[in-house]
């Protein structure tokens, strides 16, 4: 079981305080560390961030997803982690990305503010599909613009 591919999608609230530049730099540090770790653990996925929220997709072997998730849960830079989806998958949605990053733009703002406005139960009821589909779409569209992970 620990070898099967799983995907986990969560939404959380940003707890970082600082100027836009300081927070942007901190997010870059988070990405750099996560890409390094994910690469060696065989984790792929995407992170979406705006001033209020994180949404992240993690995919990989169950044991690696569990370890990564536990590390994320212990991170004080966010809170109120709601798991929107956690299930076995047959194929990765972000096979080429250690951690694709979608920063603040109109589309990510629209998704995150919709999700943040919902209670966690409602958000889970979306079955994470909108997060996932939107992330996939944005990453595809902006492929050229995003630094390769």
């Amino acid at each position: 079981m620990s070898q099967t591919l799983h995907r986990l999608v969560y939404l959380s609230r940003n707890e970082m305080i600082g100027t836009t530049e300081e927070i942007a730099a901190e997010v870059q540090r988070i990405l750099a560390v996560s890409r390094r770790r994910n690469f060696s653990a065989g984790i792929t996925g995407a992170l979406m961030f705006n001033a209020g929220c994180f949404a992240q997709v993690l995919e990989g072997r169950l044991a690696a997803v569990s370890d990564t998730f536990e590390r994320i849960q212990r991170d004080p830079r966010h809170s109120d982690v709601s798991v929107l989806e956690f299930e076995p998958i047959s194929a990765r949605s972000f096979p080429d990305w250690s951690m694709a990053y979608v920063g603040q733009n109109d589309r990510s703002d629209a998704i995150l503010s919709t999700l943040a406005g919902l209670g966690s139960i409602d958000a889970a009821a979306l079955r994470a599909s909108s997060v996932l589909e939107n992330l996939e779409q944005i990453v595809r569209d902006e492929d050229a613009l995003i630094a390769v992970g």
Partner: protein
Amino acid sequence: MSHGLLVDIEPSGAAGGASDAGKIGEASRHHDPLTGLPDRRWLHQALANCGAVPVALLLVDLDRFKAVNDTLGHPVGDQLLCKVVERMRSVIRTSDLIVRLGGDEFAILQHTDASIEGARAIATRLVDLVGRAYLIDGHLVNIGASVGIATREAGDPAGEGDGDQLLRRADLALYRAKAAGRGCYRLFSTDMEQEAQARRQLEMDMRRAVALRQFVLEYQPQFTLAGRRLRGFEALLRWNHPTHGRMEPNDFIPLAEETGLVVGIGDWVIRTACQTAAQWPAPMTVAVNVSPAQLAPGLVDRVATALSRSGLPANRLEIEITETALFGNPETVLAVLGRLKALGVRIAMDDFGTGCSSLGHLRSFPFDRIKIDRSFVMDMITNPSAAAIVRAVTMLGHTLGFETTAEGVEEFAHLAALAGIGCTDVQGFALGRPLAADSLTALLLENDCSEASA
């Protein structure tokens, strides 16, 4: 994490002259093999060795851990405990100590630069971090943490060297955190000690209240709605406390349930209600409230004995339970209710609409009656949604073959409204307040005459 920083407060047996081998032996005897944390005895010794330095003690209780163990098994529970300890370690300072006190109980001892503010900050982080979801063996697991904090100032004359008092105080604060709904922390304050003392006193008073005949039953009339005919009474418990005066169930039943005293008191209620009702000049029913803790297999024999000793026919006794009775162990409770029903006793669902009001509960047992909670009945004239709920429950009762009693009928206007929707029975101040057993016999004789002359 090494405990090397704690050498200064290390229990004396493990420090100083003992050989290394001796130290290891000593340490492993006081350490939990699963988490590697020191245990309760170790904490006692560490507290005793703290001397006069300021100390903060946080007691941490995991909420819903037992449910995880029961549903996912002990291997998952053990992995969960290890992850909880890792998260706790990520929250504390290197000089703080974590101790495993028992299955799902931990303590954190701060003995360096301890302060109330520091302890609060750690408690806030602990409640947050431990309460975040865990991913174990492919299961998403959610638990919570409740925390009680007690601190000891430097040179505090009340507490120096007395670890027991600090533990007791942290425990009272933890009790408060749990009572406040869990998933939070509480800081000890002296009023908690006073309240605990008052609770202990009330418990002692309650232990002898049956013997001293301080409990009495009052009987509130219940009427059929169609004929406005008196059909029976609900027995209501009152405690004539020697110093607090007259107390209602809400003032003491929660403590009786917590201490288990409710079983003995409940037996007295059943015996007394049966004896009293058996002497009524008319064959009225008597309804008795039964607490979830009473619904164990032994109840059936005690009810059967109360019926046979009093001579009350079983069909004149109605046992009222609330939905919460079905939360803990529904199989046992349903079996007990089934055996009571087999005796001929009638079973009513009390306060319907206020608990989780699961329709599954109504289907799980052939109840004889649903009692619609007073909060809906009292508002039904002014609040259309309250009226809609009363109507819906009444219809449900009608369809499922239950009688329905509207409680809290305080105005005559309610009667017309209830009659319009087919409710079968009513109870409330508009129709009759609870009466002492003596005045009730007089009422029954009078009632008998009026019916005879009608």
